[in-house]
């Protein structure tokens, strides 16, 4: 089928929107000290922060998918009293200033925290100042992005094909695996991109909950923030590294399938 054309006039706001996003970043490029860049970018602390960022963000995106995916399904498909409230509560981390979110995690899982004490006694596990804390902080802030965008996609998709699958004798898991998820791929793609990006850029909750120790908890945003104190231009250059990495990862990882099946 041919695509139905868009009104030409829409190109104007679309272009403006694009400009709002891209022009400032383009402006940054002009400020970069290209000569000093290689040294800066390959410095031990930058590379260690970058590696840590990619690892933790990937891991927390996975967590978001494994926990947030089911949550989105329940919110979109279940039907019980109080569902509307639940749906609003899921938005909490979106509005909480990230630093406060980090404090909340600290109050819960820190050594004086209710859950933290229990974890410590029961398993000898202490979360703060560990890489696991970084992942948790990122998961906390990024999960709502996955949940909300997935829930929207689930509602748009409807349930007709799932009903067909059930009448063919497919159990709930089979329906989920072979019908719901494949049909939802574009939505999952968007959700994963959003939550990965949010996790990668996460700063406030990480600093409050996990601290900032090179190699363990100092992700690239933390490194950039620190760098900024002494050398703003170096910080800008590092951010561009972050941006390039993220865009490459996303462009490569977002499979073609996601870009629209039908």
């Amino acid at each position, binding site marked *: 089928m041919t695509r139905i054309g868009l009104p030409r006039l829409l190109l104007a706001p679309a272009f403006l929107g694009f400009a709002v996003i891209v022009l400032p970043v383009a402006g940054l490029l002009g400020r970069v000290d290209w000569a000093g860049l290689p040294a800066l970018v390959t410095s031990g602390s930058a590379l260690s922060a970058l590696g840590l960022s990619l690892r933790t963000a990937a891991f927390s995106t996975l967590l978001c998918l494994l926990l947030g995916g089911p949550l989105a399904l329940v919110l979109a498909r279940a039907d019980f009293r109080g569902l509307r409230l639940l749906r609003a509560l899921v938005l909490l981390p979106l509005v909480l200033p990230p630093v406060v979110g980090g404090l909340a995690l600290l109050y819960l899982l820190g050594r004086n925290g209710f859950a933290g004490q229990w974890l410590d006694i029961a398993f000898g596990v202490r979360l703060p100042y560990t890489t696991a804390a970084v992942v948790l902080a990122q998961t906390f802030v990024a999960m709502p992005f996955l949940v909300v965008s997935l829930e929207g996609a689930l509602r748009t998709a409807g349930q*007709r*094909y799932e009903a067909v*699958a*059930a*009448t*063919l*004798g*497919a159990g709930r898991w*089979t*329906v989920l695996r072979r019908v719901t998820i494949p049909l939802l791929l574009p939505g999952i793609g968007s959700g994963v991109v959003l939550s990965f990006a949010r996790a990668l850029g996460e700063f406030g909750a990480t600093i409050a909950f996990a601290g900032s120790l090179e190699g363990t908890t100092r992700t690239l945003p933390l490194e950039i923030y620190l760098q900024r104190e002494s050398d703003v231009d170096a910080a800008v250059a590092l951010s561009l590294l972050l941006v390039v990495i993220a865009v490459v990862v996303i462009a490569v990882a977002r499979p073609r399938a996601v870009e629209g099946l039908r």
Partner: protein
Amino acid sequence: MSALSSRFRVTRGAFTLDVQLDLEAGEVVAVLGPNGSGKSTLMNLLAGLLRPDSGHLTLGGRDLVDAQPHQRGIGLLAQEPLLFPHLTALANVEFGPRAQRRAGSRETALRWLAEVDAAEFADRRPRQLSGGQAQRVALARALAAEPDLLLLDEPLNALDIDAAPAMRGLLRRVLRAQSRPAIVVTHDALDALVLADRVVVLDAGRIVEQGPSREVLTRPRSAFAARIAGLNLIAGTTVEGGLHSDSGVVIAGRSTAAPGENGVAVFSPSAVAVHRDNPHGSPRNALRVRLAGMEPRGDLVRLRAADGTAADITPAAVAELGLEPGQDVWFVVKATEVGVHAALGRSQGGSWPRD
């Protein structure tokens, strides 16, 4: 004990469905009825896609009223094909067997695709299929799932003049070969006759008539059945080129059945010519009957013979021949107007409730 026992009551907006429907093992029921009479609603209730306000449902002794759709073993070919858009035609057909973890699911799927004459589309996505092709693949998908109860909602829709009879023949073979019951929704009396033991006529959410297919369609009591029927049926045993009727007459016709089977000869009342004397013309079938009744039927007159056979002729012809009830006349019908089909043996004496 019947294989399927069901009773549903559900209200959707201004529409209320209130239906009791039982099927015996292996019985095939055709559901007829005008648009909006509740046929698809009934199918959805049986399949578990719609929850009744009240009712019960048992299939093969299992109580299914609270069962999830996938636990019911009830397959539904819905009114729209709804092929999974992300799967090829083959994968669509394979879906049921795989979901049920049956061995050889791929071979099963390939076989069914071939049965519906769609083997060449195996690797196509649904959006690469025409309407009729998609309908055939959807039929294969429903059949391949081998449910305990098969529901077919207008399965021959959108099929061309070659495909429709072929699929009808396929369905007949499949439904007769198995001991599992099935329900077919259709707007075509021929489907009811060829495929079903019994006909249920729905109107405005209620069963207004039911009974053995040939009985309902020859002696319709509801307006809708009367309109959809318009056919004479004579039961008997098929012979080469015709049917040996239960009353001992041989009726020539175009047979679709092998000789020696239970069968019916089917022809329209409007195909019957009435003569005072045996005309000895090309028409092969001249049945001597006694006129039992005459009734106006639209702009025609329906003559009803004592054995139930009907003939529709114009009032002018009635006048010209001077017909009156009690007379012996010849009902003459060309062999080419008579279809002889195998009948499902069990339809003779069902145990359904008659109102």
